[in-house]
């Protein structure tokens, strides 16, 4: 709103003078203007014309990035492709993570996707069902050198739909328990051991002892969203949907008990940091590294963040073990080949380089994420950088000390997330009981699962 004054810039001088020469200058101005418009038009046409060369080697690679440092990491990999295959060049296109999905959707709708497309496991079913990527199995079958088993099981599953592999992962993250060692020492309680999950009772005990409401210190903080309730849900023996993905199972006694366990920390016992912000997706981790909270659950992607922003000693441990053991979810991202690429073979070669052990070692070293390949893990483990004993991440991913399952989503997960953030998240504010919240959520979830099944049927 607000008036926008249009002043004809540049035309001021000819008109500002006397009456002589005025008509001449108006014509000149019009000519100049016409030429200028034509010039801009040419520029625009030129810019739109680029992209998607027919030659076997010019590939576009779309990925998200939050900083120039991140982009530099991917650029290096793009250069590596060119070094190994001189006839293939890879052009990187990045936007922020939030914008990436809008952009991908619009590109898909206009059939203007890049050749190599980044994909997150949580969004894979939705986009695979909508034809964003092509199955990689045909390429794998013809290329025996590729070792698919080197990728951790949860990310292999996460980037597949059923048995069909659509992308190779570059990072994987199980949800872990972070703890603030300084606060534990201050309260005189032992920190959670790295090789054995503590029990739910012990966890609750710790949180109670760490809470000092007067000093605004709390035992636990968590992003108050559905996703972070899932590790508790699974450790309690519950789940959000059945294996056939046809029904929401949040109303089973195990599920309800597990959710009550978490929610009551916020609403009844007040041993979890109160929620003051519903719109900040990082409020959980930010509260943790402000140093006022004893424990937090999050993925290994926060190592860098917490390392830089905290001024206390911290460590990681597996998720606490509930009635069904210590079960956590793992999700990650990877790259696939688009369905509409003009150079699938070049894209395959490039993809192999980008997700090779060498490349993942580079991304791991840059702290870009816990590598999706077992062979690249040593590069991630830096004895000097916190946290200590980050080797437990591998143990969790290979189910040695805890269970890590791929976070399964549906083709309608976008809408499901919106519904959950609207109707489930308020349960942490204590306005509505857990049972009432689930009673409200379940019918909507069931409906979305039905739509999901309909989409799957249309595909086959």
């Amino acid at each position, binding site marked *: 709103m607000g008036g926008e004054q249009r002043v004809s810039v540049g035309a001021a001088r000819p008109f500002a003078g006397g009456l002589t020469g005025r008509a001449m200058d108006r*014509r000149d101005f019009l000519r100049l203007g*016409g030429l200028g418009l034509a010039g801009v038009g040419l520029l625009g046409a030129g810019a739109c014309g680029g992209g998607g060369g027919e030659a076997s080697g010019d590939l576009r690679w779309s990925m998200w990035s939050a900083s120039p440092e991140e982009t530099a990491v991917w650029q290096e990999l793009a250069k590596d492709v060119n070094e190994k295959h001189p006839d293939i060049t890879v052009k990187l296109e990045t936007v922020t993570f939030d914008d990436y999905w809008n952009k991908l959707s619009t590109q898909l709708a206009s059939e203007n996707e890049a050749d190599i497309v980044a994909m997150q496991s949580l969004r894979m079913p939705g986009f695979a069902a909508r034809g964003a990527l092509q199955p990689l199995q045909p390429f794998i079958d013809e290329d025996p050198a590729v070792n698919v088993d080197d990728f951790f099981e949860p990310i292999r599953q996460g980037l597949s739909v059923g048995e069909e592999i659509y992308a190779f992962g570059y990072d994987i993250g199980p949800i872990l328990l972070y703890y603030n060692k300084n606060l534990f020492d201050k309260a005189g309680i032992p920190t959670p051991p790295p090789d054995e999950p503590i029990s739910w009772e012990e966890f609750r005990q710790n949180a109670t002892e760490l809470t000092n409401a007067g000093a605004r210190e709390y035992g636990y903080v968590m992003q108050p969203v559905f996703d972070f309730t899932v590790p508790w849900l699974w450790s309690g023996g519950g789940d959000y949907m059945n294996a056939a993905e046809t029904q929401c199972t949040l109303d089973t006694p195990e599920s309800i008990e597990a959710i009550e366990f978490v929610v009551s920390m916020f609403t009844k016992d007040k041993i979890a940091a109160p929620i*003051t912000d519903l719109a900040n997706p990082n409020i959980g981790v930010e509260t943790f590294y402000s140093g006022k909270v004893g424990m937090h659950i999050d993925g290994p992607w926060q190592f860098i963040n917490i390392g830089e922003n905290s001024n206390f000693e911290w460590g990681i441990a597996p998720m606490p073990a509930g009635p069904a053991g210590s079960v956590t979810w793992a999700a990650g991202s990877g790259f696939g080949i688009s369905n509409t690429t003009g150079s699938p073979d070049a894209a395959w070669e490039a993809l192999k380089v980008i997700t090779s052990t060498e490349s993942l070692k580079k991304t791991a070293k840059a702290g870009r994420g816990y590598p999706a390949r077992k062979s690249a893990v040593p590069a991630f483990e830096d004895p000097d950088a916190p946290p200590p004993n980050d080797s437990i991440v591998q143990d969790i991913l290979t189910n040695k000390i805890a269970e890590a399952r791929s976070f399964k989503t549906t083709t309608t997960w976008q809408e499901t997330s919106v519904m959950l953030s609207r109707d489930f998240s*308020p349960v942490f504010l204590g*306005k509505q009981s857990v049972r009432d919240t689930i009673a409200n959520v379940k019918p909507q979830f069931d409906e979305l699962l039905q739509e999901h099944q309909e*989409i799957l049927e249309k595909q086959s």
Partner: protein
Amino acid sequence: MANTTRTRRSSIFQWRPKRDREGLAAVFFLLPNLVGFLIFTAIPVGAAFLLAFYDYDLLLGASFAGLENFRELFTTDKVFREAFFNTVYFTAVSVPLSVVLGLVTAMLVNQALRGVVIFRSIFLLPYVTVTVALSLVWKWIYLPDIGLINSALGIIGIDGPAWLTSERWAMPGLIIMTVWKSFGYNMVLFLAGLQNIPEHLYDAAKVDGATGWRRFLHITLPMLSPTTFFVVVISIISSFQVFDQALIMTNGGPGTATTTLVLYIYQVGFQSFKMGYAAAVALVLFAAIFIFTVVQFMFQRRWVTYD
């Protein structure tokens, strides 16, 4: 200024009669804005009108759905009803507050005191600041324990509510922030209106012994009514479209307490990718704003005095 069709031929502009020359020039001047308007506004709006009658998932393709979207909207969609009610509530409270505050401050800064220009600038400053930046700052102001407002309330012994996470106070929180932000624009418009009221009317009234309040009631308000009409219409239109604050400060929460119509369109269209349905909601929003505006224009004859 005679017709020079027969003389110089150095440009196409000389061939035609002067009337046509000026017409052509006008078209060229309008062309950039017109082309931009067509490409970025008119055509997309037209497309959205059409989309409202389709079931368009963006990636699964479009299938004609007739009035299905609207049927669902008006019968089974609880969130749409909430969003509509929230938007009306927001408008009904924020517009009068913003208009009145704008008028009061306009009258205050309408005096020829030294430095009054500084105050005009200060009052206008929130309006010209980016809403997103303001939303982020106001999130801190509304923090329950350590935020500015609750700390101030605490000093006088009031236990402030949990503002942005409270179902009852989240919307009032947004309203307060929006009124603070937008009254400056209204102030500027009212200021212009006030300064256009001829002084002699006041002089005559003073001579007749009218008190300040009566002068306000019988001279200022009627003479200002065209400005007031404009301010109210514009405020209502922009209030109906509130989005930035709802997204950044509360993301529509808690629950649906601050989900406004435009935020709902955003959620349905860009988070759930149901473009056809989102277009239907947008169409309903357009119709609502249109009806409100038409009604106001019809009533203006009753209360707006043009001299």
